[in-house]
């Protein structure tokens, strides 16, 4: 065990058991999986992505490139989780990944031998290989060998949520700067959200041994956190990563509600995706340490210096027994002193600089630490690190260590400042990129802005928090900033030990080496954007947290350009990976989108209806009877019953729009191609409306109930679109028109009653005095009346099926009652409920157009409505419908089709060709839009669009359907296979 005897912010009273690769270990509350593994001397945790090299834990945070593991098992298995941020819980089951058969013995490490082929530009070069090589080598072997963890194979049993919240000031990061910012804004009375990805606030204060106000800094952090928690206007969100900055002050955040528990507590989601709307924000995301690149730098035991310090101070874990520190900056020296103070042997500090502040050198020497200036690490040894080769002051030496703590300096976490396209700017004094142009109303404080000392973080945080609150009108008493001693942050820019031996990794997660960068340079991929794509540097899930700066610095040294000249790639959301479950939230499975139910839904369900989704609506597709085994059998029965006697269907899903006012007729004349201002009261008319580009938008019947009151119906699919269009006409085009519209789609349940017996049935449900005779309600008549003993109703004599038909609208709550009353009234006639399949068959038999023909690519002329268009008025789309291309007589136009051999099936989508013509694009004459099996005719029938179709009735063409292998002869006929004279519906 490497758990230190004392110290740390773990709860030693709470022991937690967990397994890694099947072996049992113990840890404590407050541990991460990484700290617990190190406490148990587990140092080999994974195999690398491409070369399967053994890898250990590198960091102590979200930047971890190596220690990716699978957490949990079965349906909850979650791959590629960073062990460094996975909070330990009792019973945690973790597995290493990308190794076979075991982590210790990984046979796929032979990939290392393939490294000449897997280097820079590998992906692009494979495209130049022969295709056979792709199929035989690339796909089966390399894909399997290179990779990450395994997905769960069952649906995730947990639930996820999304939520919105609003605040005045969002503070991102609860380190010293963030705590001070939240305190300043919170005390001023602003609504504050303080979010941190960690489960513990304090940031670096938990990892270092600084004092604030004479107390350990972690205690100060806890005290400030407690004050913030007590303020009603402050919301503390730990375990919450702000991952993206969006427009208008909107921030995306992921709250890991139950990732630190075996299963979510009762009725809690696993994760919650927050959309935070903040009037101001302070980014206090801290900084990330970066390594130095040298040969053998990926050996388990080589870690970031700050991480070693964090494991020692926060988790009371000794990552090794004998540590060397390889540094370019002063901060690493303080880390070395912390490590030594915890009782761990520090063999040496190797610093690339010739001169280091005398006080640091003296302190190190006083602790008995060798200080080797002008030094560098040139090689490492051991499967797990056993020794390093160094050169210091020109003298080579081998030092036996099991841990090498490396620091190449710190990079401010500028990621979120780039989300609006801002480019970071180089700051030579700290050898790091700092925020450049930042998103509006976001300020950066503390280490994230490059202010690396603790004192400046506290001061800067307080100032930025106060400024944000003050800008929003909150009177701000600036909180006292605790005084702390100023520490030195000197650094020498140093990136790569060029004379080191062995593969020198820049990007550990994607296995990109310094040599790959030099290949990219040689092959001409020198801009940072090319470098990134060509080598995949920084393209792993860690987004190059620890590799971007070193990678571009190495490229800069190759090109001879400076780092600011070389520039950097920018960061895009998300800051850390976000699960798809969280992005979906409540909307998964059948809740993917809200389902709309018709007023007769339960009624139809009780009658055994099979339902189908049509847009958001769930509609009865057909009503199978016992013994019917095939949907077509049920549909044929329903169609025959309607044509022979009577049937009913719920058509409530049609859009219904109430139009009132003196100018309704004028409006309708301008939106429909035909005239409605002359429509008689008590009559309905079929209308077609165009888009302004001259193509058909929608169709439907509109009835006039009173001089200044019309009611329009639209197709189900276009209900919202037509309403929006009418509002555009009234608000934008012709605001002088005095018309008020209201959607009444939901107010009225509407049932279509069709068949020769329809009037007999209807007569039994209308109230006394309501005349539904042919004289009282003629074809295309509309009236208001009442049914079922006092239920107000609108009655229309309309037909989509081609039979005598009525539509009866009643207030929606009475929809099912009306359906049942019609069933009772029609019992003697064998009344049959039918679904939208039968409706579709009957409209095709009758030759009516529907959604397949109103495709957004057809004109009124194409569909046979040319003569309906008024020439006496303007209407939307009229001018553009006259364009030569839209009046070309060669345009495919609407006709019917029947198979020459009646036993053959038609297919919608089949294209028409002249008999004998080759199947080529230039010979294409149109296509079949709708087909149905007509029980009335006993064979398949179709509708479609054919060049000069109406002139070619009786001719035969080829219906060619290569997708499903159909190629048959069909005869062109008039659309309307049943009762073409319309005697039935007028009867």
């Amino acid at each position: 065990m490497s758990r230190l005897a004392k110290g740390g912010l773990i709860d030693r009273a709470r022991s937690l058991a967990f397994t890694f690769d099947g072996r049992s270990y113990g840890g404590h509350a407050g541990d991460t999986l990484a700290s617990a593994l190190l406490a148990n001397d587990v140092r080999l945790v994974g195999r690398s992505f491409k070369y399967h090299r053994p890898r250990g834990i590198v960091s102590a945070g979200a930047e971890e490139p190596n220690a990716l593991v699978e957490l949990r098992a079965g349906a909850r298995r979650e791959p590629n989780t960073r062990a460094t941020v996975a909070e330990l819980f009792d019973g945690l089951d973790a597995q290493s990944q990308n190794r076979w058969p075991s982590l210790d013995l990984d046979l796929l490490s032979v990939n290392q031998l393939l490294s000449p082929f897997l280097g820079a530009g590998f992906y692009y070069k494979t495209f130049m290989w022969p295709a056979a090589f792709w199929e035989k080598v690339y796909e089966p072997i390399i894909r399997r060998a290179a990779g990450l963890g395994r997905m769960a194979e069952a649906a995730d049993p947990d639930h996820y949520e999304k939520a919105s919240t609003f605040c005045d000031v969002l503070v991102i990061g609860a380190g010293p700067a963030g705590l001070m910012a939240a305190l300043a804004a919170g005390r001023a009375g602003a609504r504050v959200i303080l979010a941190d990805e960690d489960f513990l606030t304090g940031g670096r204060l938990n990892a270092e041994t600084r004092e604030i106000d004479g107390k350990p800094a972690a205690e100060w952090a806890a005290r400030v956190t407690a004050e913030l928690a007590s303020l009603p206007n402050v919301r503390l969100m730990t375990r919450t990563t702000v991952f993206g900055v969006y427009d208008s002050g909107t921030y995306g955040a992921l709250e890991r509600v139950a990732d630190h528990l075996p299963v979510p507590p009762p009725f809690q989601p696993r994760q919650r995706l927050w959309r935070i709307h903040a009037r101001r924000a302070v980014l206090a995301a801290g900084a990330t340490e970066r390594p130095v690149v040298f040969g053998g730098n990926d050996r388990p035991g080589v870690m970031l210096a700050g991480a070693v310090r964090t494991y020692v101070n926060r988790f009371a874990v000794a990552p090794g027994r004998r540590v060397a520190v390889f540094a370019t900056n002063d901060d690493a020296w303080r880390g070395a002193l912390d490590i030594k103070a915890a009782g761990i042997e520090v063999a040496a500090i190797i610093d690339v600089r010739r001169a280091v502040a005398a006080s640091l050198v003296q302190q190190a020497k006083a602790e008995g630490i060798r200080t080797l200036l002008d030094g560098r690490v040139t090689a490492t040894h051991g499967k797990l690190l056993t020794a390093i080769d160094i050169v210091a002051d020109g003298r080579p030496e081998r030092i036996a260590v099991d841990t090498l703590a490396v620091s190449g300096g710190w990079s401010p976490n500028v990621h979120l400042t780039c989300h609006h396209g801002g480019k970071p700017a180089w700051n030579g004094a700290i050898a790091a990129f700092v925020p450049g142009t930042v998103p509006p109303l976001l300020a950066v404080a503390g280490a994230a802005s490059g202010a690396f000392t603790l004192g400046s973080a506290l001061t800067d945080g307080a100032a930025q928090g106060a400024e944000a609150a003050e800008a929003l009108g909150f009177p701000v008493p600036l909180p006292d900033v605790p005084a702390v001693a100023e520490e030195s942050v000197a650094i020498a820019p140093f990136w790569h030990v060029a004379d080191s031996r062995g593969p020198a990794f820049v990007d550990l997660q994607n296995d990109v080496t310094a040599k790959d960068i030099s290949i990219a340079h040689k092959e001409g991929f020198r801009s940072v954007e090319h470098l990134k794509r060509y080598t995949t540097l920084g393209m792993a899930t860690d987004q190059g947290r620890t590799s971007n700066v070193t990678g571009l610095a190495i490229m800069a040294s190759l090109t001879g350009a400076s780092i600011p000249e070389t520039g950097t790639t920018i960061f895009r959301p998300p800051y850390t990976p976000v699960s798809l479950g969280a992005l979906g939230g409540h909307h998964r499975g059948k809740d993917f989108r809200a389902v709309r139910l018709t007023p007769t839904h339960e009624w139809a369900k009780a009658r055994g209806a099979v339902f189908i989704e049509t847009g958001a609506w769930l509609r009865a597709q057909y009503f199978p009877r016992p013994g019917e085994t095939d949907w077509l059998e049920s549909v044929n029965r329903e169609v025959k019953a309607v044509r022979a006697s009577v049937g009913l269907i719920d058509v409530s899903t049609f859009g219904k729009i109430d139009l009132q006012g003196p100018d309704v007729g004028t409006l309708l004349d301008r939106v429909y191609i035909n005239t409605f201002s002359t429509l008689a009261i008590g009559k309905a008319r079929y209308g077609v409306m165009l888009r302004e580009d001259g193509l058909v938008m929608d169709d439907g019947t509109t009835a006039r109930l009173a001089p200044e009151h019309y009611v329009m119906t639209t197709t189900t699919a276009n209900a919202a679109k037509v309403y929006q269009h009418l509002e555009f006409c009234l608000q934008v085009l012709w605001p002088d028109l005095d018309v008020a519209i209201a959607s009444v789609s939901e107010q009225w349940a509407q049932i279509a009653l069709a068949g020769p017996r329809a009037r007999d049935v209807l007569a039994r449900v209308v109230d006394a005095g309501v005349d539904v005779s042919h004289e009282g309600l003629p074809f295309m008549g509309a009236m208001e009346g009442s049914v079922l003993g006092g239920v107000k109703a609108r009655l229309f004599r309309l037909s989509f099926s081609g039979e005598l038909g009525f539509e009866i609208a009643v207030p929606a709550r009475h929809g099912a009652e009306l359906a049942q009353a019609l069933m009772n009234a029609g019992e003697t006639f064998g009344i049959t409920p039918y679904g939208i399949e039968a409706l579709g068959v009957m409209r095709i038999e009758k030759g009516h157009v529907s959604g397949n023909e109103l495709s957004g690519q057809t004109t009124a002329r194409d569909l046979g409505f040319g003569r309906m268009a008024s020439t006496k008025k303007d209407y939307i789309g009229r001018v553009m419908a006259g364009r030569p291309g839209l009046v070309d007589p060669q345009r495919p136009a609407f006709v019917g089709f029947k198979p020459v051999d009646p036993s053959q099936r038609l297919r919608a989508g089949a294209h028409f060709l002249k008999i004998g013509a080759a199947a080529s694009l230039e010979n294409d004459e149109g296509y079949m839009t709708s087909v149905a099996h007509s029980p009335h005719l006993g064979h398949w029938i179709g509708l479609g669009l054919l060049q000069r179709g109406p002139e070619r009735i009786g001719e035969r063409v080829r219906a060619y359907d290569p997708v499903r292998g159909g190629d048959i002869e069909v005869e062109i006929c008039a659309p309307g296979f049943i009762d073409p004279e319309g005697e039935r519906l007028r009867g």
Partner: protein
Amino acid sequence: MAEHWSHPLDTLPFDTVPPAGHYGVADMTGVAARRIEGLSIATLAPARGAEAAITETMRQALAMELPGASRAVFAGARTLIGTAPGRWLALSSLDRDIAGTLRAALGPLAAITDQSDAFIALDLAGPKVADTLAKGALIDLDPRVFLPGMAATTVLAHIGITLWRREEATWRLLVARSFEAALLRFLVSSAAEYGFELDARG
């Protein structure tokens, strides 16, 4: 590790309005929802140039002030909600036919449309209403911001609603009838962690 609880949506048929009952955490009711029956509802839109006359008539005949913004105005059993410039929703829990009442009072001054069956009305009460609604809404419903008398026509879990706060702890929302099941599924799911009491008929 064995499941020790199951999510209420896992066992509710998706195409059925969830039945009355208690959902989620057993011994708490963070949100109580009650379906309000018998409301008569109408939309009201003034004819061109008639806004002033309507305002006056509403004041005289019905003792109601037309809200000039997205607000709720209460007068006895009647409520007026501003939904758009020159558009109001009128509701009454006593009038059987608010549309008829308005028509009688306003005559040709306004276009009035009965919408009594277009909406399902739900009353929401309890300490966790705002937290629950925040899981689907994209507006600021913080009780310190969205005060009693405020109203909004907006979305909840991608479903259009009109919502207003009646009193300190009571909120009412209208949702299109066809979306009732979908909306209640969202509420059941979102309020389960606080304890959700669904009372079907109020």
